[in-house]
């Protein structure tokens, strides 16, 4: 069973995404801020990280930068899941090597799961 780490500060969205992923047969771990999320990437070794950008303690951008700096974590696939949708944010994310950039409001949980499957090579 593949393990997904959700780093999301909004409890409602985090709980919904967790439930959807559990229903789609994934193992799920969650973090509610950037720095604990970064620690969990190391301690939990997830197959994919679903990362918000506007987060307490450390932004998603900082988390991404730290991940790419360490050989242990540089290859962990990251999908940005955020409501920032400016073209420069999207380009910045893709330049940093994220697998996908998803604007939360424009997609449903089922569509997000499909995108995750694609990133994991499952569909």
């Amino acid at each position: 069973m593949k393990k997904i780490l959700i780093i999301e500060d909004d409890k409602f969205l985090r709980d919904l995404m967790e439930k959807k992923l559990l229903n789609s047969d994934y193992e799920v771990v969650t973090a509610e801020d950037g720095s604990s999320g970064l620690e969990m990437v190391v301690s939990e070794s997830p197959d994919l990280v679903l990362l918000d950008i506007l987060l307490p303690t450390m932004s998603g951008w900082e988390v991404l930068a730290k991940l790419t700096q360490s050989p242990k974590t540089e290859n962990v696939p990251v999908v940005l899941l955020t409501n920032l949708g400016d073209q420069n944010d999207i380009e910045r994310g893709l330049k940093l090597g994220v697998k996908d950039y998803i604007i939360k409001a424009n997609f449903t949980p089922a569509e997000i799961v499909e995108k995750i499957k694609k990133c994991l090579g499952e569909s």
Partner: protein
Amino acid sequence: MTKREKELDRIAKLLIRRDLELTAANERLEELDRVKSNFISVAAHQLRTPLSGIKWVLKMLIDGDAGELSEEQLKLVEDGFATSERMVTLINDFLDAARIDEGRFVYNKKEVEVRDLLESTMNNFLAVIEEKDLSLTYLLPKEGSTKVSADVSRLAIVFDNLIENAINYTPPGGKIVISIKTTRSRVKFCVKDSGLGIPQDQQSRIFTRFFRGSNVLKETQGTGLGLFISRNIVEAHGGEIGFTSENGEGAEFCFSLPKLKE
């Protein structure tokens, strides 16, 4: 200095002062406009998060993530979900309009075959066209390129807006004709409907922000931003957009873009 020279000098000074006052007033207005656009942008971003939650939970209920719903419950939740989708469109329109105002609307242009883009756009509308029992006719060039240089996702917004308007403003049983014409240097796309038309006195305001026709069908939803955004996108591609309409006899909206050489 003669009396006449003195008078001229006085008028010149007055004019200079008025000019300065006008420049300052104009700068204040521009600043206010920036504040307003920035406010819309921030407010729209802030609205997206709670709205995402509402949309997600309703779709998960529909998808059976919390068990099966009764037929009646499903219908209510589906209506709620459709409303949340409309609100997402509305917020995205506000954000696009604010980005246009702030000059932050970015275009990544590539080679686009207009004919192909039309086909993929139409797939989103076939169900509603059938539901409203509208007759749909295509007049497309049999051969030759319809290639333009465009940002495909932005150009898709123009197609969406024009086709959606034609559908929304045409009563059930009406007609829609979609055409693509090419000349040596241009690709022209038109959508003609047999709807209510645009009253003469409103025609000059149709591409301005938040303008909505007074003869809107009751059930028609919209922000009044679609044509404003469309005009900006078309013009940013070196194109032109316009329409013809006799009140009560439908409307035809067309835009043309420079054609890429084959």
